[in-house]
């Protein structure tokens, strides 16, 4: 009974030599908050731009609301709200005028538009700033304006491309809560980000992208189940004889034990006595150690497991 809102099949997009999207496929059902997670340059924005027919693509098929999407599919476009990665507002217009301008591209009825614009102002918490010009807004407020401009016309499908980049934590939380609210009101959401915490917190289903390919897809539980280790134990220890490390690595449930001179990082599958067994080994050798902590897997571990590199880039 769930309707498919977005269907991407075998999308291939080249920028000259570079293959930005490599046979990328995706299906999103009505009512989902779908997360597109991937490091910078993995092709998230390119996917969105192709989805919206802003870019031509080399191969593939895109359907929205069950209809083929083309640059002239105005009946489809009117049901979509877009929040671009690059803030697109007019600096010469006030906050209110900006929301009114973008809303007016969809809604021509003046009275209805006024109501919608006021609701969007309320939604984004911009009430105190309606007469401000964008240049005067902080990064977080500017992002919220960008969002208000994208959702004012009450679209059925909302696409947000990295809406929280360079945003203070307070604005970020407000944005994430707002998106959940829109979703509860019935909108299907596509959310791209390279922040795994956000995607984990917000999204009902997630696709992980790398180098233009989809490398995993599912709910966050499904994704985490895909990887072998469910627990990472980290022990701060300076001196560690090689045979002790090997002994720990050969313990039951332990996949790997790596020592970098400061820390011993042990990956193991779920089991009740992992930590006790490991600490027993260290104590029997009379080796002193510092802090000990264990972590449950994150999407970063999923990404690491599949691609062999960390999801986060250096600038974060």
């Amino acid at each position, binding site marked *: 009974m769930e309707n498919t809102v977005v269907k991407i099949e075998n999308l291939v997009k080249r920028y000259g030599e570079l293959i930005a999207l490599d046979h990328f496929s995706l299906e999103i059902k009505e009512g989902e908050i779908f997360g597109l997670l991937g490091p910078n340059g993995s092709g998230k924005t390119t996917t969105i731009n192709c989805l919206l*027919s*802003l870019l031509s*693509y080399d191969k593939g098929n895109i359907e929205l609301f069950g209809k083929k999407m083309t640059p002239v599919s105005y009946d489809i476009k009117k049901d979509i709200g877009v929040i*671009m990665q690059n803030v697109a507002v*007019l600096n010469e217009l006030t906050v209110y005028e900006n929301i009114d*301008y973008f809303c007016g591209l969809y809604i021509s009825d003046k009275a209805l538009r006024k109501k919608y614009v006021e609701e969007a102002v309320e939604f984004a918490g911009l009430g105190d700033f309606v007469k401000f010009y964008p240049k005067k807004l902080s990064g977080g407020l500017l992002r919220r304006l960008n969002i208000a401009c994208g959702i004012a016309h009450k679209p059925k499908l909302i696409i947000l491309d990295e809406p929280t980049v360079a945003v203070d934590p307070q604005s970020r939380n407000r944005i994430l809560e707002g998106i959940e609210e829109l979703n509860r009101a019935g909108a299907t959401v596509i959310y791209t980000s390279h922040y795994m915490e956000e995607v984990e917190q917000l999204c009902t289903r997630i696709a992980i992208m790398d180098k233009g390919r989809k490398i995993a897809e599912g709910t966050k539980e499904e994704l985490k189940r895909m990887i072998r280790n469910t627990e990472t134990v980290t022990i701060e220890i300076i001196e560690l004889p090689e045979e002790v490390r090997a002994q720990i690595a050969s313990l039951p449930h332990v996949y790997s034990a790596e020592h970098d001179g400061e820390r011993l990082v042990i990956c193991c599958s779920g089991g009740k006595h992992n930590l006790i067994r490991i600490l027993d080994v260290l104590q029997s050798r009379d080796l002193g150690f510092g802090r000990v902590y264990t972590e449950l897997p994150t999407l970063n571990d999923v990404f690491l497991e599949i691609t062999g590199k960390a999801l986060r880039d250096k600038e974060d």
Partner: protein
Amino acid sequence: MQVFNAFLKVLKKRSLSAMIYIAVFLGIAIPMASSSNATEAMKLTSLDICVFDEDGTDASRELISLLAENNKIVTLENDRDVMTDALYYEWIDYALIIDKGYAEKLAAGETNDLFRSYHMHDSYSVVYVTNLLSEYTSTVKAFMTSGNSFSDALSKTADALSTDTEVTMKSFSSGGGLKDIVGFYYRYLPYILVSVILGTLCPVIVTMNSRDLRFRTSCSSIRSASYTMQLFLGSAIFVFAVLALFTVVGIVLNGGINGDMLLAVANSIIFSLVVTALTVFVSGFEIGPNIQALITQIASLGMSFLCGVFVPQSMLGGGVLAAARFLPMYWYTVLNDMLMGDTRFDAGKAALCLAVEAAFAVMLVVLTVLVRRQSSGKNAPRQKKAEPAAA
């Protein structure tokens, strides 16, 4: 008309400098027009000259006939008092006494003490005649020095100075149908048009056409053609309003419409089209505000200097003028100089000027289309090009 409304709002925000240009220009032009008599002194008018030929030779008669070309020679009694009265009561403007022995002295290569002249008022024309006389004698001497006989020298000098005077005199005396002040008004107008149209419209179009905004707008249900049309409409209305203002002021300054005025207006309209086309062309590149301002300055100031707006074309070097031919403002100024009476009016040349300006506009439009097509080839945000290849 959502885009159109936004366009006007952006335009309003960006029009401060245009307002200043217009206000300063009109603030100078209108007061000048009300005191435009001051410029009368610059006009060369025909003088009433009384000549006493005490020499009575062919040479002296030749000098008189040269003066007679552009002035009225009046005969008076050869009496010192009569002459002074005539000058005093302004029956004559200028009195010239050609002393006995004029021909002999001149033939001997002398240039001083050949004649005496009297006048009461220093008008431009009086100065001109005085200069003409001294130029005459020195030219005769120069021809003789270069080996001509006295009579050859006289006739060659007469030829040289009379052709020269003919052109000069025509240019100043025919005066065109434009009042001087209107001529100057239209002469500086292209500078103002470039500053106002390019300086205002370019930032607005660049803003409205920026890649991010175009992408964002393309996501909405507004048609790409409609978007472009609304931008075009907004630009056209702006240019029209600016032109209408300047034309009305021009007609008022001129005290009505005549043939020359119509040509001046046509000249400004076609030139505005060129500037608008230039604006659209420049706006096709996503350039920052500093570069936009720089381009406006170069186009307005640079063209104005090269093309004879600030410095008359007659004072510019041949090299500069040769280069300026490739700029539309040159042709605007050539036509305006004819209308001002600085150069002789020639209907064919006037038509040529308008045609060349129009050609510049067409060329810029073609160039714009070519550049847009070129850039939309590589993943640019042009909608029509975004058709999926597989479709």
